[in-house]
């Protein structure tokens, strides 16, 4: 702790504060040790590990099929993507071909999940800053998505929808119609969010030019997903390392443009997500149009035993690049499962960005990075 005599000759020292582990703005059990000089932060060290559930170790003890429901728990807000990463890794190891309808079902479910996850990100962002009303508006729409998910796969949060070789249940035509109806209802709502929150002068003043992450920093600290794109880097796994049926779909990758301040500030990170909501809607509409007929799942042995080998699969989750490194030794159980998530690297940059910003802006920074505590620790 630094000690110095101030200009008045009085003894001054830094104050050490604990933000968390239980704090309304940390979205889970997450702790920061903050050293402050008055309101200005000198240092903020994130302390992770409170939510470690050893999901990677469980993978070594479960069968290949039995591990899929566990991956749901890696990121509870975007369970579908965690499913997809593991299933794709297992398919690549076992040489399983997913039928086209299965791929489309996957993309529909995933993009719906992305909308739900971004709604939470946007809603809680507002709530952390002090705007509670938009949070309720966002959650209302998310409930509709949960209802759709319930119809598609029978669960509202831990979906376990994807199987190795396809999806668990086919999406019925009536459900497709309901998804289309939801999109018709939802797209104007995004405009409402803009009027409610994005264009609000207080909100803009609170976020513009706050906690700016430059392009170089973002690349050096390995930020992924919307956080990276907000800093002006055009990088989306869906487009750049295509998987599933994304090459057949037409969508844009929104990039932060410094709309209300500097490129890469908190506002950009917020607004990239708003624009991604609309892009996801576009992808969903195309998928609903293009849905081919046929089976939704390939025939996979119940005792799935992929040949020995290893693979690394990358997918674009709402919190960025999610990677699954899976090693098989040819047995009924995976030999090793390693999950790489976007929130973990997002945490590491807080250390770099926080010196010199206000305590209240730290909250804006955490919220804008959209970190998700269960995903950090796994």
């Amino acid at each position, binding site marked *: 702790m630094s000690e110095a005599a101030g200009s008045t000759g009085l003894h001054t020292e830094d104050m050490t504060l604990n933000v968390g582990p239980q704090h309304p703005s940390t979205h889970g059990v997450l702790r920061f040790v903050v050293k402050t000089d008055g309101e200005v932060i000198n240092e903020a060290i994130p302390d992770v590990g409170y939510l470690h559930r050893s999901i990677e170790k469980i993978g070594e003890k479960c069968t290949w099929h039995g591990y899929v429901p566990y991956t749901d728990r890696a990121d509870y807000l975007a369970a579908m993507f965690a499913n997809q990463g593991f299933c794709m890794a297992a398919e690549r190891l076992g040489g399983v071909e997913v039928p086209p309808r299965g791929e489309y079902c996957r993309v529909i479910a995933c993009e719906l999940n992305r909308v739900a996850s971004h709604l939470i990100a946007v809603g809680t962002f507002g709530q952390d800053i002090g705007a509670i009303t938009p949070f309720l508006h966002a959650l209302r729409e998310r409930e509709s998505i949960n209802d759709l998910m*319930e119809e598609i796969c029978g669960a509202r949060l831990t979906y376990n929808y994807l199987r190795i070789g396809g999806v668990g249940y086919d999406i019925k035509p009536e459900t497709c119609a309901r998804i289309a109806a939801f999109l018709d209802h939802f797209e104007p709502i995004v405009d409402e969010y803009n009027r409610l929150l994005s264009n609000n*002068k207080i909100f803009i003043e609170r976020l513009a030019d706050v906690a700016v992450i430059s392009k170089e920093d973002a690349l050096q600290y390995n930020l992924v997903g919307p956080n990276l794109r907000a800093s002006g880097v055009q990088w989306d796994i869906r487009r750049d390392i295509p998987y599933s049926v994304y090459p057949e779909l037409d969508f844009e990758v929104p990039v932060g443009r410094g709309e209300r301040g500097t490129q890469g500030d908190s506002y950009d990170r917020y607004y990239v997500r708003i624009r991604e909501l609309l892009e996801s809607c576009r992808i969903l509409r195309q998928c609903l149009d293009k849905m081919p007929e046929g089976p939704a799942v390939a025939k996979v042995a119940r005792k799935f035993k992929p040949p020995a080998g290893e693979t690394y699969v990358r997918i674009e989750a709402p919190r960025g690049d999610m990677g699954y490194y899976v090693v098989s030794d040819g047995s009924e159980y995976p030999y090793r499962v390693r999950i790489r998530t976007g929130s973990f690297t997002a945490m590491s940059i807080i250390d770099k960005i926080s010196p010199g910003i206000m305590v209240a802006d730290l909250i804006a920074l955490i919220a804008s990075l959209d970190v998700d505590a269960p995903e950090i620790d796994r």
Partner: protein
Amino acid sequence: MSEVITYFQNIKDTVSSIFEGMSITFSHFVRKPSTVQYPDRIAQQVQDTLPLRYRGILEVDMDICTGCLACERVCPINCIAIGIERNAETNQRDFTLFDIDICKCMYCGLCMEACPTGSIRHTQEFEGACNNPAGLVRHFVTENVPLYKPKKGGETETRMIQKVDIGKRYMDEIAEPES
């Protein structure tokens, strides 16, 4: 001078954007409410409104369970316990135990997919609160019952036909992934 103008411009922008937001909030006074007063003032039981695929608390129809143990084996957390013994009198195999621990169950739905007759099913029931965790272990065998053996050429008893039908329909609608 320009600073003064910016100052008042900011105030004007702030106030107008607040009212912009307020107008949306007020418009909700005339829209259909999106909340219900649960659980007192609901038109219909929630259980009745849930989709068919909803994965609620598990139930087992012991009359059409063949005792193949597929569900027990596929369960990732071993929440299903099955006991089978050979009955000395009838020389048949009997169930002595079929317990599902609802506390442990994570509602993944892998067991119902593995079931060949559709006897283990997710219901629409989700309210399972009770005072003692032991009450959440569902016992489906109270006295020893013989295993179900599908008859060649189909069932003859009406009761059994219905039960087999329900299982089949459940498998077609939900558990069978192929379209």
